[in-house]
């Protein structure tokens, strides 16, 4: 393996990029450890990945009514996402155009105008500056309010999932999601879905890519890391996690689709709604779905999990963002979604199973966080780069894709690292962009 002759710290941007291109070799099944913890890689990633692509900001159901708003983070910047009087959703940088004060500080609420705490400028939730205290008196006729609206953020949505981007040239969301939409239909388009409550938030001392890597294709760890779940009888056996397909598409997206399932994982009462929203092929996949774990590039992971809780089978659906705070730190933000028209008892049990399995106290999740933390700690500092330490991503390289009813590149069981290779390939493309 290539060894670093120069400290990454002393590299120019061009040198760092060259070094990345020499050492990040997903096609050969090799990714260097330093990409998980190096501050310079993190900084470049912020510019080349997070400032360039689509970033998840929430679900439309979180702001269902006129003038509802929510505060979200877009690549490190606070934005106000609000539903206007005409029911359209718009987003603005949460910064007053007078002197830059943060306009809004609540997680969510309902209001049509935002008043700046510094000098009292008023902004409508369509971004317009509509009021300036004592305007005539202190500015005369000179102030042109029409040029002082809030900075609008480009947003687009797919089946209720809202994404924003700071990149004016970003491709349409539809193209970015591409083939992956077929699977997102099953995840969030199968029925009218709604977010329940506020998202869970907690901090892990982990690089964000470990979470993405874990969800994009790592079902292999289930046997070991989540061994306790099989022991408790919540899943059939430790090896059930191998059964199904591993699928990826362009732009680094990927998922593991667990199948077959002798039981229908979703509310029976909604079969007609599912059928109406899905193609015949998609419905077939839904009908025999055991679980679905994946990642929309870069860091929106999702999950449908079907387990036995208190002797009764139940599924839960969630999406989670591995929001980077630093090279070695991230905030996990997890939203629980449920079929809006499901029976109340089903909704309650589904939420219960989500909290029990995937939340800060989740008995699946908590064991993952331990692993993520230790991997990050071991990747830190000069040594891993100096010694050329790498991770092995060769699993399944000997295998050929199979025919699958949905689009993308599919393999006929989940124990492969093709999805992670696809993730890092696109990541490297963007870093070079």
């Amino acid at each position, binding site marked *: 393996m290539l060894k670093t002759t120069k400290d990454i710290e002393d590299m120019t941007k061009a040198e760092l990029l060259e070094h990345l291109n020499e050492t990040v070799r997903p096609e050969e099944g090799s990714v260097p450890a330093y990409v998980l913890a190096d501050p310079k890689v993190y900084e470049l990633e912020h510019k080349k990945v997070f400032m360039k692509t689509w970033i998840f900001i929430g679900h439309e159901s979180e702001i269902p009514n006129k003038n509802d708003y929510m505060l979200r983070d877009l690549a490190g910047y606070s934005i106000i996402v609000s539903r206007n009087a005409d029911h359209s959703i718009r987003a603005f940088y949460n910064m007053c155009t007078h002197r830059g004060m943060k306009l809004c500080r609540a997680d969510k609420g309902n209001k049509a105008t935002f008043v700046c705490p510094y000098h009292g400028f008023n902004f409508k939730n369509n971004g317009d500056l509509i009021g300036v205290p004592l305007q005539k008196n202190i500015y005369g006729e000179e102030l042109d309010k029409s040029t002082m609206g809030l900075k609008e953020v480009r947003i687009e949505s797919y089946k209720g999932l809202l994404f924003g981007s700071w990149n004016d040239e970003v491709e349409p969301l539809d193209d970015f999601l591409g083939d992956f939409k077929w699977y997102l239909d099953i995840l969030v388009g199968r029925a009218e879905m709604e977010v329940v409550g506020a998202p869970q938030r907690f901090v892990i001392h982990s690089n964000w890519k470990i979470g993405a890597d874990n969800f994009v294709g790592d079902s292999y760890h289930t046997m070991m890391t989540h061994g306790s779940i099989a022991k408790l009888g919540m899943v059939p056996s430790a090896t059930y996690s191998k059964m199904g397909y591993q699928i990826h598409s362009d732009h680094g997206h990927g998922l593991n689709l667990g199948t077959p399932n002798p039981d229908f994982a979703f509310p029976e009462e909604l079969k007609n709604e599912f059928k109406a929203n899905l193609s015949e092929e998609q419905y077939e996949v839904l009908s025999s779905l055991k679980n679905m774990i994946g990642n929309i590039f870069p860091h929106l992971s999702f999950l449908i999990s079907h387990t036995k809780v208190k002797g009764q089978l139940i599924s839960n659906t969630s999406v989670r963002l591995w929001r980077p705070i630093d090279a070695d730190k991230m905030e996990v933000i997890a939203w629980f979604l449920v079929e809006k028209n499901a029976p109340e008892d089903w909704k309650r049990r589904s939420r219960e199973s989500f909290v029990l399995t995937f939340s800060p*106290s989740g008995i699946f999740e908590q*064991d993952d966080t331990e692993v993520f933390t230790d991997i990050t700690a071991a990747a830190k500092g000069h040594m891993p780069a100096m010694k050329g330490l790498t991770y092995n991503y060769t699993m399944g390289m000997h295998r050929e894709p199979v025919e699958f009813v949905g689009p993308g590149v599919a393999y006929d069981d989940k124990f492969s690292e093709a999805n992670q290779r696809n993730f890092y390939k696109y990541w490297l493309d963007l870093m070079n962009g």
Partner: protein
Amino acid sequence: MTVEKMLANYEFEQWLYKEAQLLDDIDFDGWFSLMHQSLIYQMPVRVNKEGTERPDYTADMYCFDDDIELLKLRVDRLKTDYAWAEIPPSRTRRFVSNVKLDEYVPEQKASVNSYLLLYRSRSTDIHHDLISGERKDEFTYENGQWKLSKRLFIVDQTTINTRNLAIFI
């Protein structure tokens, strides 16, 4: 305050200290035996509200939402060889204070408010986590003992600064 209520307040303080000790000593079975069959064990997600409107936590999303059966499952899980989040166990120290007895019916039921500051240290990590919050507890008297029948833990952070809640609050 009547002397009777003062004594009862003291009794619940001692109960909470004992509970803290059992948890910090990782005696989860001992701790579990303090729970009542009708237990509701909840920790709602705290949120940032605009002003002083309260409660400032969600009524429909939780970090813990357990009944006695699910709590038992957590305790049992910690005894499997695969509960990595707590292998080896965190060193925890639970500081319980501001114990205030509200409703009190001798040998029947009681509701008690208290503050909790939980220190957590893992392995050789020099970081420590602090979890602070308020407990709103309810107790039911059974077979000569006070058992915890409801706990609502209001955490003081909207983003929880610990990697997981593989520990009890």
